Structures are given as C-alpha cells and as structure tokens.
C-alpha cells in the first residue's frame, strides 16, 4: 500500500525525495505480489481496450526509442536492430558551433583534467544521461540532453524529417517518475509525437527472447538489476551497485596502480581520495571494454538437478580452468599504452591482473556474505536470492529462462561465471521443494542460509550472520511468504490449465540461460505485431496535465478504461493508460 501512497505523490509530479536504491522497488514489489491489493486486481482491465489492433497502425513508421544511462538507441518498428545509437558524451554539452573538442589541443594528455567539474562523480558524470538521485538532478537538463541526442540520431541515422511520428519508448522500470516526466516533456514539447507509448525494459527483453517468463539479469552501467518476469509481468526486482561504472572505476584503480609516477611515490600520493583520477574516463572505459575479462569459477556446478543447460557448462569449466592454467604458466604480460596520464607511457600488466576489476566489481569473493550491504550483494548471491524470493512456480519458470543483458554482459566469461556460481549456490543450499511445499522450505530458509553462509565463509561467525540476514530479508520475507502460500494454492490449477493447452511441457526447474534479441528489438517486435503499446500517452493530454493527468491505478474503474479510446474519453483514456504507466514508474 505504501507503494500506492508514494505513487500518489509521484503522480503529483513533484520530485520524490530520493530513496536508497535498496528500497526503491520493494513497495512496488509488495504491491505487486500482495494479492490483497485491489489495484492490481483492477489493472488488467485497460488491456481489453488496448488489445484492439487499431491502437497502432503498421503502415506509418513508428519510432522505437530505448533510453539507457549512457546511450540512446533508435530505429523503426519491425527492424531487427536499431538504426542509430547515440552515446551521451561531454561534447554534447557544448554550445552549437563550439568545435573545440576537435582542436588537437584538447587531445593533449592532461586536458581532460581541466574539464574537471565539481561534485559527485565528475569523472564519469558527463557520459551519463541521468543519475537516479532526484534531488541532485537538473531535470530540464536531462530533457535537453535527450532532445539533442535524439535530434542527432534523427538527422544522422534515421534520416527522417520532423513530421510527427508515434514513438515507443523503452525505459528501465526503475526510472524515477520525475525523470520519466522530464523525458516525456522534452519528447512532447520538442518533437511533437502524437503519442508516446511506454514499455518496460524487462518485458521487452522477455518478448525478445520468445518467452513469457524470465529472470532478467541486467548488467547495466549504473547498477545491476535483476528482474523476475512472470507471464509478462514484473514480479520482483533486486539491484546491486555492482555495474559498469564500478567496473570502469576498478579498471582505473588497476591502471593507476601500475603508473610509473604512482609506483614511485606511494606515500604522498592522494590517490586514495576517490575524487582524484590519474587517467581520463574515456581511456579507462575503453580499456575496460577491450581487455578486462573474468575468471571462470573453479568448482564445477551441480549436474543432477539441472538438465541440458549444464553439460556445456561443464566443458566450459574444464576448458576455462585449462586456459587459466596455461595463462598462469605463460605469465604473459599485456602492454597497454596510456595517453591521458601526465606523461604518455606504456605500462605492462600481468594478464591475470586484468581479471581483477571484474572480480572486485561483481564478486568480491574474499569477503564473507554477511559483510555486504543490501545494495552491494555480489551478483551470484543477488541472483540466487531473487530466485529464492520468488513464488515457487514462478521460480521454476524463471530459473530456466535467465537472460543476461546490459553492457557488462560482454565482459568475457562473466555470464558463464555468474551462471556457474548461481548453480553452485543452488546445489549447496538448494531449495528442496522445487516440486512444491515451497512455503515451509522458505520459512526454514533464513536459518538454513545462515548455516550455509557461515559454513562457506569460515570467517563469518554465525551470530553475526543470521541477524543481518534477517534484517535484510524481513521485507521480502513478508513478500514471499504469502506469495509462496498463494502460489502453493494456485499451482495445481495452473499446471492443469497448461496441460490442457500446451502440447509440449514447458522447460522449468533447471538452470538455463536464454538469449534475447535485446530490449530494443523486443520493443520493435511488440510494436510490429500491433500488440498493445502497453501504455499510450496522447500529446495533448500530457501537455495539459503532465504527470498529474495520470490517475492512480485504483482510480481507474472499468468504465473509463473501456471507453478510453472512444470519443471524448481521451483524457480519461490517457489517464487510464498513464495509470498503468506511472503504475510502474510512479511507484518508486
């Protein structure tokens, strides 16, 4: 309910007080999974109206727009992949006609330091569209950035004139409402699309994988988000700050450590101050994407409970181990030219060292499980827990539909490593009741996990472990308890229904990763199939009411939803649609 409350505030379109990443989603989650929410019961209704194929016409080309923290992708609905990708860079912040970035002076090595702007994360900030911290954000600026990037994309890649076109916008579902409305503002007021439809990233990915349920592991830039999607609904989300930005900072740390100038003077060096950087973001980012890799996990995961998914994995482990072994005996060093430091140089690193950044960023396996804060759980643990918190039928579906996505998914070996370690965790701690009796197994679980945790992490005394466990799980406990119960009741019915319809058994209950064509392409599919654009916002309605025009889910009664597309019902219609939209984005 608290979720709806904040939703109301949000709908008032006043910027929300920032919430820590950890609890952004939890209210939402609860309101989703808690069956006694009238709102959720009434939500499906608008669908009947949006189901109508007329809601989108295929002949006119619809623009699909995916917004990420660092880049914007755009293309036509029905295409397999976006036509253009525009990254957010500092040079976009320059005035029109200011070409100084191209003068070779600005290439001189320490120039980037003069770009130093004060405040948080100045190092990488200008490469990002937004920070989810609403207090800091200059929302107008975000709007401007989006607009400029969009115009560039339209003239360079799309080659289309500025005739109003419908847009489908794919957004991360964690996006705070004020940012969403800032984006919509600049879209509507600058590019005059008749309508903008919103899609949530995880759903688009799920569709892009050809499944109805999935566990999205989005190894993003700002953070890693794990979303469980069941029957095209986001059921549960958990996040960790262990994402691309951290990876690049770790890479910088590694490189800076090997800089000759730092090798000499260790004592007086103030590089422990996080705000101090020896290398440019661009360079570290580049090296991170080029050379950083991820060690395979050594112990091989469980065979029995997982079927086809794992044989490949077994081979992988052996071969990886082999590779690692050979590399160690080769003791190869990698020479990396650095040009953004005070005096351009070429440093030599041991090949192994290039695995450190990903190690520290995503795993930190040297620390005990209990020592992690809620928002910085190592990824395998994060995945495991988010699986654990799922209702058991949902979990069965999700664990065999794991979709890795996001920029860091291309860190070599990372996906395999996470997958392997999660399987290992499941093997060690398991949930015996995959075939049912989930509830009591869950209830037993904190104790269980406590034991396992301490056993695995020798240093972590149990006394310390379990309380922290309890704390960080209390809320979710609330969630998964009733979720488990309910699904427990439902399970047979569902199975029955499925059996009635589906000729082949659904793959479930075993670890399996699947590939998605990506959020953008998924959205393109959805739009192309004339499937409902989920939520469509009319321009007039938005310009008139803004986010305030949206009504809270509970307000949407069947009638308004039904006639929403009818004449006169426009605003209420849009309200109805918004009610869905801001339902997702307004909650946090």
């Amino acid at each position: 309910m608290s979720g709806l409350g904040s939703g109301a505030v949000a709908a008032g379109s006043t910027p929300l007080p920032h919430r820590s990443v950890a609890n952004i989603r939890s209210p939402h989650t609860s309101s989703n999974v808690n069956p006694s929410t009238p709102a959720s019961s009434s939500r499906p209704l608008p669908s009947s109206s949006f189901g109508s194929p007329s809601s989108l016409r295929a002949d006119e080309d619809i623009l699909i727009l995916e917004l990420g923290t660092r880049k914007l992708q755009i293309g036509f609905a029905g295409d397999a992949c976006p036509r253009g990708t525009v990254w957010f860079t500092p040079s976009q912040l320059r005035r029109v006609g200011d070409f100084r970035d191209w003068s070779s002076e600005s290439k001189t090595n320490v120039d980037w330091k003069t770009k130093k702007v004060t405040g948080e994360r100045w190092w990488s900030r200008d490469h990002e569209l937004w920070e989810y911290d609403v207090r800091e954000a200059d929302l107008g600026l975000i709007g401007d950035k989006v607009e400029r990037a969009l115009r560039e994309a339209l003239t360079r890649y799309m080659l289309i004139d500025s005739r109003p076109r419908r847009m489908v916008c794919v957004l991360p579902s964690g996006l705070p409402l004020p940012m969403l409305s800032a984006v919509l503002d600049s879209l509507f007021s600058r590019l005059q699309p008749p309508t903008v439809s919103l899609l949530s990233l995880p759903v688009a990915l799920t569709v892009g994988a050809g499944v109805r349920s999935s566990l999205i592991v989005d190894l993003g830039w700002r953070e890693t988000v794990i979303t469980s999607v069941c029957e095209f609904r986001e059921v549960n989300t958990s996040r960790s700050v262990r994402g691309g930005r951290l990876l690049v900072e770790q890479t910088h740390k590694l490189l800076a450590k090997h800089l000759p100038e730092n090798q000499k003077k260790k004592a007086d060096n103030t590089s422990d101050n996080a705000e101090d950087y020896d290398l440019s973001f661009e360079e570290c980012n580049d090296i991170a994407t080029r050379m950083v890799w991820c060690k395979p996990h050594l112990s091989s995961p469980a065979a029995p409970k997982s079927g086809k998914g794992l044989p490949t994995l077994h081979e992988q482990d052996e071969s990886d181990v082999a590779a690692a072994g050979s590399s160690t005996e080769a003791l190869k060093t990698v020479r990396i030219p650095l040009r953004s430091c005070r005096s351009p140089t070429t440093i030599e690193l041991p090949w192994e060292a290039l695995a450190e950044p990903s190690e520290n960023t995503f795993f930190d396996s040297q620390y005990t499980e209990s020592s992690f804060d809620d928002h910085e759980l190592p990824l395998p643990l994060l995945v495991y827990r988010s699986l654990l918190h799922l209702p058991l039928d949902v979990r069965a579906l999700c664990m065999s539909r794991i979709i890795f996505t996001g920029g860091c998914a291309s860190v070599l070996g990372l996906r395999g490593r996470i997958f392997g370690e999660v399987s290992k965790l499941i093997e060690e701690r398991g949930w015996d009741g995959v075939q049912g009796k989930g509830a009591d197994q869950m209830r037993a679980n904190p104790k269980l996990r406590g034991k396992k945790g301490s056993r695995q992490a020798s240093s972590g005394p149990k006394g310390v472990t379990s309380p922290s466990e309890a704390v960080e799980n209390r809320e979710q406990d609330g969630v998964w308890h009733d979720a488990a119960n309910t699904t427990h009741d439902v399970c047979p019915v569902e199975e029955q229904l499925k059996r009635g319809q589906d000729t082949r058994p659904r793959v479930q209950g075993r670890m399996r990763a699947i590939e998605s064509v990506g959020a953008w392409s998924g959205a393109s599919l959805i739009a192309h199939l004339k499937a409902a654009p989920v939520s469509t916002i009319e321009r007039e309605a938005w310009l008139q009411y803004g986010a305030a025009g949206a009504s809270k889910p509970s307000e949407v009664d069947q009638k308004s939803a039904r006639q929403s597309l009818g004449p006169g019902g426009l605003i209420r219609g849009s309200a109805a649609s918004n009610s869905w939209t801001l339902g997702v984005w307004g909650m946090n």
Partner: protein
Amino acid sequence: MSSKRHSILPAVSAGPKPPVHFSSSITIADSALLTGTNLITISSESVIHPRAKLDSLAGRITIGRRCVVHERTMIGAIGTSGKVTETAVTLGDYVTVEVAASIEAGNTIIGEGTTVGVGSKIGAGAVIGKHCTLTPHTEIPAGEVIPDFTVMYSNGMRRVDKRGVADLKNKGQARQIDVLRRMIPSNPAKFT
C-alpha cells in the same frame, strides 16, 4: 587561431658549407639548403626537392638510395639536447620525407622504405623501423623506437601494416623518382 606547431620553418641561415659525398645519379634542386660542418652523404638516385634543408652541424647525415626528401623538410635540426654526435641522421633506402617534416639530429635512424608524413616531427635519437608509415603530423618523441611495419596515425595511435606491399611501394618510389629527375633541374655542382 593557434598557428604554433609544425609551422616554424627553418631560418635560411647561410651557414658553413658542409663537405658532401654525392652519388653521380642523385637529383638535388638548386634551392636545396645544405649547411653544417660534418659530411653529408646522398646515395644513388635519391631526390632532394627545392627548399629542403639538411643541417650537418650536429653530426654526419647519410641518405640512402632512392630516397625522396620533399620541400621544406628539416633534416638534422639540432635537437633539444644540443649535443653533437658521430652521426646526426641516417635515412635507409627508399625513405620518403614529406613536406615540412623535421628530423632532429642525434643518431636518429629512419629504416628502409619508411615514409615520414607531412609535417611530422622525429625527436633526436629516435629509431624508426623499416617500412613504417608516419601519417601527417605524427610526432615521435626523442629516443623512441618504432618497430618495423608500424603505422602511426591519429595522434599517436599505432598499428601494424599487414599489406605486405613493401617492394611494390619501393617500385612505386622508383617510378616517382624517374619522373622527378625530369622535373627538378639538378645542380649538385653548387654544393660540391
């Protein structure tokens, strides 16, 4: 408008006339500038364009066979370390030094078949490998060693030339020299 780099041309100083050792088959423009005190050797069929400057004050200058030294080049400029060495600059065979490039003195070696791009600067004591390509405005710091078949481009990016057209390139150079000999009135007598 910053017109600082690459733009400074060697002052036409009527320095001492250096001892020279020319092959009979070379082509050297009348307006080329040779100054210095040490020996300047130019081997067969090499071409020195007008207004190219060779300065042997800081040591011997040796130019290999079938080299082309374009106008406004400065070969043997006294480096940051103004010290005099046995050999100042050595160009291998088939080396091309393009317009307004400058090569500092001090045991600087340019390998066979290498092209030094327009306005490039090579620091004292740098050793450039064979069949390298330095794209225009490349700057090689003093003492740097560049392996064979390296391409320097875009402000110091490096890559390896895998075309394997070295001797094709040399043949091309030969053709070019054939033409230049007809076009540039040679006057070696002036310098000997």
